[in-house]
């Protein structure tokens, strides 16, 4: 259970962050103030805000768990990011900045027509509106199970807490709270890695610890396998990653809106380059924490599975007998692996190869027992079982002192809220600027749109929180819509490529090209086995080719 001191840290965090949000957002006098912080933000604040938006709570706990379970190869997914940032700085960012737009999709109307703008903006609202519920729900479930908190209270705290100051303070409140939240996340990450390293046995050097985890292949961060079906490789990460990041940072309002707040084009560019330099090292630290946790659990017995609620259900089920036998095998395997790890840590020269082989055999045995228990839980529930997200929070609660637990809890809350508030703010902006101001009330005083923006934020915040509360029942429907959402990321990128790379493309070409791109991605996902990271390339290329050809044959007036 959580110590009162940790609760105090959490309460102080909520009071502080809501206070910062309300204070920094109190001077909104117009639409540019409310949605774009009056285009006055410095690059470092935008850069931290971009990182905070991207780092959700599940990124923090899930990626650490990924490092523990699967190792560090996941880092390759970010290999395309720095190059994508440079491409964006050279291409889309100057266009957005000079067009003086509020949303990325507004630019498409300037270049094409209203229907292309409305369609792309609608697709954004659909995918982000639903993903916001997931962003609130996923960490709430994990924290409720590991820390014994009430899931509904957590959902309300994250969802409503973020909605209050986002609705009141708009973009300025969002960005300044994100600056603090990102600093808290950084601090939390350093504490996480430090806590794991300090928790290792005194006799174990850092080099020996890395050697133990390296033996299992978990420190492999570069894999040159050219197979396009494998996601975590250098080539998929580089090529697919470039398109993924171009799509996300170039066409997703929740990111574009951040760098539109720059006080100059140079500030906007600097914020993206700041990300280009920091993102991979940051992910390295998170994954390394998970990998070092693997070493920690060589000498401290980990639970056979990290989701204690599912384990309790298993113990009370008809599978209890099978579980007890597997748990006995697991205990034996753990003892065997602990001894093998100690031997490996002390091994030198020719004895090292033998020690490595013995250690790997013991690790496989332990992994088999753990996998068998997982399969038993899956059989009991009739659904796949995965406890990756529970690994790190379980460690935090079990081994860290009061106060530090609170700090790491706060980092998880900060990660969740920073993503939620950005999405709420961008959803509100797209709703008001691309639809309300475009079709409903086209000419009203600035203050009218600020009020409308606040109402839209509250509606979206309520929708996301309500969706999260009922996620258990709506889960599969939301998952289906999220999956469809992944079909149009690359396709929307294709529309932007048409917009800036060619003068001949027309609105009609862009619109039907977008439809063709989404269909092509759907067919690719159904009938091929290539990694999902390549879907964005398929979508983008099909949109550009089809859109350009339709534009050439279109009688419509060229843009």
């Amino acid at each position, binding site marked *: 259970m959580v110590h009162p001191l940790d609760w105090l840290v959490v309460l102080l965090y909520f009071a502080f962050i809501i206070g910062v949000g309300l204070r920094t957002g109190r001077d909104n006098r117009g639409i540019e103030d409310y949605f774009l912080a009056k285009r006055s933000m410095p690059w470092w604040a935008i850069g931290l805000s971009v990182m905070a938006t991207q780092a959700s709570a599940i990124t923090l706990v899930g990626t650490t768990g990924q490092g523990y379970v699967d190792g560090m190869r996941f*880092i390759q997914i970010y*290999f395309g990011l*720095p*190059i994508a*940032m*440079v491409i964006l*700085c*050279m291409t889309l960012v*100057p*266009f957005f900045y*000079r067009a003086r737009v509020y949303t990325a999709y507004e630019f498409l109307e300037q270049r094409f027509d209203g229907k292309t703008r409305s369609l792309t903006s609608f697709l954004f609202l659909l995918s982000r509106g639903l993903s916001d519920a997931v962003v609130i729900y996923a960490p709430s479930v994990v924290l409720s199970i590991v820390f014994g908190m009430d899931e509904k209270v957590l959902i309300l705290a994250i969802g409503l807490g973020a909605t209050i100051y986002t609705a009141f303070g708009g973009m300025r409140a969002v960005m300044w709270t994100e600056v603090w939240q990102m600093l808290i996340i950084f601090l939390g990450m350093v504490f996480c890695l430090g806590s794991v390293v300090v928790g290792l046995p005194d006799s174990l050097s850092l080099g020996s610890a*890395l*050697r133990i*985890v*390296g*033996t*299992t*292949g978990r*420190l*492999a*961060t*570069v894999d040159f396998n050219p197979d396009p079906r494998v996601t975590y490789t*250098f080539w998929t990460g580089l090529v697919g990653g470039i398109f993924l990041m171009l799509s996300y940072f170039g066409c997703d309002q929740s990111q574009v809106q951040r760098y539109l707040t720059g006080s*100059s*084009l*140079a500030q906007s*560019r*600097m914020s993206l*380059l700041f990300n*280009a*330099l920091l993102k*991979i*090292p940051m992910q*390295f630290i998170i994954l390394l924490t998970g990998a070092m946790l693997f070493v920690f659990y060589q000498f401290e017995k980990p639970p056979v599975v990290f989701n204690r609620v599912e384990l309790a259900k298993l113990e009370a089920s008809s599978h209890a007998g099978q579980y007890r036998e597997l748990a006995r095998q697991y205990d034996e395997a753990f003892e065997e692996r602990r001894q093998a790890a100690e031997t490996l840590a002390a091994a030198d020269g020719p004895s090292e190869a033998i020690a*490595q082989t013995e250690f*790997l055999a013991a690790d496989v045995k332990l992994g088999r027992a753990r996998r068998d228990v997982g399969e038993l839980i899956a059989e009991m529930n009739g659904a796949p079982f995965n406890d990756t997200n529970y690994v790190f929070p379980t460690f935090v609660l079990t081994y860290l002192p009061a106060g530090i637990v609170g700090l790491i809890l706060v980092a998880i809350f900060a990660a969740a809220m920073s993503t939620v508030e950005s999405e709420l703010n961008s959803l509100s902006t797209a709703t008001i600027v691309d639809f309300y101001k475009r079709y409903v009330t086209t000419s009203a005083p600035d203050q009218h749109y600020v009020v409308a923006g606040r109402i839209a934020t509250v509606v979206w915040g309520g929708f996301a929180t309500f969706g999260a509360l009922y996620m258990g029942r709506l889960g599969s429907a939301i998952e289906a819509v999220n999956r469809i959402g992944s079909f149009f990321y690359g396709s929307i990128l294709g529309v932007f490529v048409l917009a*800036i*790379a*060619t*003068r*001949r493309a027309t609105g009609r070409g862009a619109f039907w090209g977008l439809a063709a791109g989404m269909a092509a991605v759907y067919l690719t996902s159904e009938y091929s086995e290539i990694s999902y990271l390549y879907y964005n390339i398929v979508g983008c290329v099909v949109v550009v080719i089809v859109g350009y050809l339709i534009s050439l044959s279109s009688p419509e007036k060229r843009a």
Partner: protein
Amino acid sequence: MRAEPDQVENARRTNAHPDDPPPVFGSWGRFYAVVIANTLVVYLLLFLFSHFFRP
């Protein structure tokens, strides 16, 4: 090779408002080159890290 008319037009639009130089490295081209070079170094370091602690 001659530039396509649309490329010329886009270049004209992009360069219509001269940009502030970056606070470091003198020009944006040089800044981008530094970011790419840094990225290549990161790839290399990660490769060496993988290689050094390989099974």
